[in-house]
């Protein structure tokens, strides 16, 4: 397998998109101006924009106008589609990943992509990713991987929410008003306790995939990730 050296730089990509957008805006403006000139010319009004000399032959001017209009429109579409392509290149880390290789070595990082036979990993922390630190991405084929452990984003918050929901259950079990009042006091303890327990469980929660350098197990992992 050929391993490419890839650097993902978000700021560069975002700048490219802005440039493409600017170009497409300029082309769009030119199209509007050309169309206005063309309309003014065909209707016999004085044109707001002078693209061609007034003394030019009408038939030639007409033909040139049409061609210019088509050219500008095609350029606008190209610039816009390039901006779209660049948007597709922006990669965000999916989750934290912990790989154990078949040789027993370990790699921790952020999972960027999974292709049909490889995983692409950013070998740093989320803070480093946010600070645009450029590290060489690690590319591991399934034949090198023994175990993959993933930790999803927002798992702590999810744990807190579930813990809080479970902790507030006593509020909904009381029947009479007196019972409800006493249970409200009780829930003042159970809700924070549930939140803390949920946060701990959320922090510890992880999913383990045994790959054992197997193609089918890797595809199973891929399907579950998506």
């Amino acid at each position, binding site marked *: 397998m050929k*391993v490419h050296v890839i650097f993902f730089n978000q700021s560069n990509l975002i700048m490219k998109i802005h440039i493409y957008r600017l170009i497409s805006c300029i082309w769009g403006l030119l199209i509007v101006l050309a169309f206005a000139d063309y309309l003014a010319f065909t209707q016999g009004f004085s044109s707001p924009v002078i693209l061609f000399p007034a003394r030019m032959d009408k038939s030639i001017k007409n033909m040139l106008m049409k061609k210019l209009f088509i050219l500008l429109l095609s350029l606008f579409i190209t610039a816009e589609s390039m901006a779209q392509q660049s948007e597709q290149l922006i990669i965000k880390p999916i989750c934290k990943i912990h790989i*154990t*290789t078949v*040789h*027993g*070595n*370990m*790699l*921790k*990082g952020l999972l960027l992509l999974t292709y049909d036979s490889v995983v692409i*990993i950013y*070998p*740093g922390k989320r803070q480093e990713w946010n600070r645009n630190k*450029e*590290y*060489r*991405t*690690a590319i591991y084929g399934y034949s*090198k991987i023994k175990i993959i452990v993933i930790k999803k984003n927002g798992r702590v918050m999810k744990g807190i929410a579930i813990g809080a929901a479970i902790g507030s259950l006593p509020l909904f079990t009381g029947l009479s008003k007196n019972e409800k009042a006493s249970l409200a006091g009780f829930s003042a303890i159970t809700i924070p306790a549930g939140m803390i327990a949920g946060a701990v469980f959320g922090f510890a929660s992880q999913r383990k995939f045994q790959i054992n350098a197997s193609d089918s197990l890797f595809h199973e992992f891929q399907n579950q990730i998506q």
Partner: protein
Amino acid sequence: MTTRLLLFIMICLICNIAKAADVNDSLAKNDKSVLRLNFLVSPKQKKIDPAPLSFQLQAKLMRLFHKKTLYVIIANSSEDMVSQVLCILKKRNAMIGNIWFDSHGHFNRRRSLFEIGTDEYNWKTIRDSSTNIRLKRLADYCDTNTKAGIGSCYGGATYSLPAIEGFPGCRMNGDSLMIGLSELLNNATVYASESFVMTRPGILNASYGFFGNPAKKKFRDLIYGPVWEKLGEWNCYSGTKKKFEKPVTVSLRQDGRIHCKPKKYLAFEKNKRKLEEKLARLKKGNYNLAFLYQEEGNDIFKEVYRKK
């Protein structure tokens, strides 16, 4: 309780002063006409880092008792360090007796190095005229009686690191770094460690403060095997003889002089037993390979890849 504490501090201080007087107050006089000063160079920290902080605190404390000979230089870069050292040397009309470069070693860069602030010196940059030009300015104040110490982990490592997961095996080249530094400092004697360099309390007390091992889990990986095997060994390159002398056990005296202890660290049965236990417990999977990928942007790695 407070009085006891005060009494204890007082006794410690008295002991220190007594020791300082005992250690023949070193205007290290090999050549009696020349005044020789000792420098401890440490990097300026942006974040709180316990290792250099401990070194700086201990060095500054000892400076209180050896103001005439010991100077603590905390520098941002090599240029900053050189200008501070030269300023002192010119003012005192002296030469460098001992100079100690306190720094972190970076195992993930897979080469021996030491840093002065932001500047890195390794086997390659030490010979590069564009990077060593600042250190070269110290050469006029050094001679064969000058001793230089590289206080970074693996600063004098001579072993090769094993290949791991697509990263080729490579030599640390600490010996080249030592030779380069010796040549740069006018054939000074250079000391550097093969293994870890600790900054325990009492490093400036001619004790075994530099010896030991870090406790972090990542160091208990098989990738660190060669480092563990050479624990407690220091290399010495003599600029006059132009050769490596037999390994020594380096420590620092209170006045910043580099001192070789007669007994090796591993000569103590307790240390030897501990090391054997730790060597037996080394296993794969403790070291995060991401560190190797992070350090790959530098020139040396690119060259290695091109060659491969």
